[in-house]
């Protein structure tokens, strides 16, 4: 056997990582579709639009998610240096920050709702769009949290450093992406408020 079929898995890591990038592209297109939808919809009639000032909690959530990107990167660096305890710690901090993000977003919804900017039964669907943006993004955050928890290592003795780094890389690519995605959505909403 000159070359065992199929065992060039190491090589394939690159191809698999590439699939993650492609997934980010498709996910971004989904949001581009939504935001273009918003623009087309809003442009049709002057009475449409967000017509309200976004609550301040969204600033906090933005801060939290940026901070979590930082801790994600620290986790990645720790993993690369084989400091698995630190890796776990930073991953968990990132996940907790993700939880805070959830909380802030829900608070934001609550504030909007109280102002009468509601999701359903709203004749100005531009406002309903806010909920769709945020909910779709939160779905990504939820997936990101699962990835984070999967990257936490329990048995240090059985860690394959290459695979561990790969997993961290995948997780951090995704996490940074959803961070940037939120900034995109937030800026988009700010510009249209």
């Amino acid at each position: 056997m000159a070359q065992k079929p199929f065992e060039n898995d190491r090589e394939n890591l690159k191809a698999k990582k590439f699939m993650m990038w492609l997934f980010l592209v498709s996910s971004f297109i989904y949001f581009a579709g939504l935001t273009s939808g918003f623009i087309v919809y809003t442009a049709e009639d002057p009475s449409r639009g967000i017509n309200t000032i976004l609550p301040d909690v969204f600033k906090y959530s933005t801060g939290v998610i940026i901070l979590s990107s930082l801790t994600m990167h620290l986790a990645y660096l720790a993993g690369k240096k084989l400091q698995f305890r630190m890796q776990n710690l930073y991953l968990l901090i990132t996940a907790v920050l993700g939880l805070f993000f959830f909380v802030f977003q829900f608070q934001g919804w609550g504030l909007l709702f109280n102002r009468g900017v509601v999701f359903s039964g709203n004749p100005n669907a531009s406002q309903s769009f806010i909920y769709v943006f945020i909910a779709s993004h939160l779905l990504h955050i939820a997936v990101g949290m699962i990835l984070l928890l999967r990257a936490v290592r329990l048995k240090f003795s059985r860690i394959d450093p290459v695979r561990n780094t790969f997993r961290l890389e995948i997780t951090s690519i995704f996490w940074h992406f959803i961070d940037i995605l939120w900034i995109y959505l937030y800026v988009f909403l700010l510009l249209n408020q």
Partner: protein
Amino acid sequence: MASTAIQHTLEHSGHSHDDHGHHHETFLTKYVFSQDHKMIAKQFLITGIIMAVIGMLLSILFRIQLGWPDQSFPLLETFLGKWAEGGRIKPDFYLALVTIHGTIMVFFVLTAGLSGTFSNLLIPLQLGARDMASPFVNMLSFWFFFTACVIMMASFFVESGPASAGWTIYPPLSALPQAISGSAAGMTLWLISMVFFIASSLMGALNYISTVLNMRTKGMDMWKMPLTIWAFFLTAILGVLSFPVLVSGVVLLIFDRSFGTSFYLSELVVQGQVLPQQGGSPILFQHLFWFLGHPEVYIVIMPAMGIASEVMATNSRKPIFGYHAMVYSLIGISVLSFIVWGHHMFVTGMNPFLGGVFMITTLIIAVPSAVKTFNWLATIWRGNIRFTPAMLFAIGLVSFFISGGLTGIFLGNAALDIPLHDSYFVVAHFHLVMGSAAICGMLCGVYHWFPKMFGRMMDEKLGYLHFWFTFIGAYLVFFPMHFMGLDGVPRRYYAFTEFEFMKEWLTVNTFVSWAAIIAAIGQIAFLWNFFHSIFYGKKAVQNPWESSTLEWTTPVEHLHGNWPGEIPTVYRWPYDYSKPGHTTDFIPQTTPFSQTMSSNLPHDFEGNPEAERIQIEWQKKQQAEAEQGV
């Protein structure tokens, strides 16, 4: 949904480390939850064929209604129950039939059945890879597709019937259960099914792109890839860029249907009742839908084009004419297909100036399409043609693509489209250019690569029979529809008995229905041939078509990892057929130039002066020897 993809990429990479070398294959891992791309390809193909048969039977049902609108067929009531009371199909059910027929054919057969089968089979085999980038995601892709099929078919068993707002599911019709019975549970199932379907095609597409870009064997640079691979690659890119937009459209529709929002709904009165939804924009849905919808039609045709190019070069024993032009025209079509969607909306109240822009882009797309057509014709021109069944279907594709593409130019004209829109002219256009052409491409691929998939040959005689039934049948069915459309006969009407001017088309409809039934019967030749040959066909040799591409260097018996030893290296482009000076009329991609000194040409060595020098020296020596010999 697509996020599961990532998760499982991880999972696979996490576990595959342990299952090195020893594969304990059970029935379940070999035939059901297989991660081998060749098996997954077969799964896609057979599921696709079953869906195609179902789609075809649905079309026969509504053709019966259109051909004999006044007649009662008690048999129908036996099978369909309340949907055909008194032996006559009900109007609501007629619309459901048309809708599900369109959905099945466009998405399940010509997208998943076509790309799923041949991208999976050929990308690793023609590029020299052991498997896909992520075999696990690949397997998941098939099972999502399968689930989508099951859910779609399940909608026939709900009380209110399957979705019936057309394959384009325009709201408000699709959004309001009060509007039509199919928009109740049936539409919900349609949407769920499509979410699974889109997840499946995205997972497939991510794999195809990544494999093409990262896992080619040594020597296989992009410009040595067969046109099939170029086509699958660009198709996958179209999918990644357009399907997510359909998701966003569908998500908003789901909210409108079930959560009381009004993205698409406004000022509606149904059965005397004023609905609460206000301020929505139905045009918004059409933009989101057709931004996918138009690329989707190219997602359907491009793999078929790639397959036909490959088969035509092989069976004309000639290099493909204009390889680079073929690639660039595919790229051109891919890019342009994103900026023409408005041609489906010329008469929906879109700004007419915008219509003018879309008209221009639409007409430009005819240019790369024409380039491809002329290149195919030039490829078979004075070729040493072998009329295998695959070759016939490839030629059939070209024929249908021409006759259907020409009418596209009429439709693409914003002014001409005013009378033609939503008439049978459109039905004729897309059934020729998409339906018939792409089905020909798919069948062409099945006949050509059947020996690679199953290790046996299909029967040629039955193949010829099948071809002529299909080819003539399709023209007889769809050609008359042009004239109906020009006369103003609208599509999606249940019967043409109510309007005086349409009555004269009744006989034509009867004729078309007969042609459809006969063409459908002709498909039995294929089904028999296909399933019988899997078990009892003649054993195939390794390279039955004397083709030069890489997949024919693998052993007939399938094995995990495709090549028993090292993956072969590639030295030349895939179309060295009938090269002057060579002993055989094809040179495999794996043959180095040093073994073909008598046929090498100067441009084979562009950019490599050393090789060029050796070649010239060799030629001088040959010449000197020849002169001495005289």
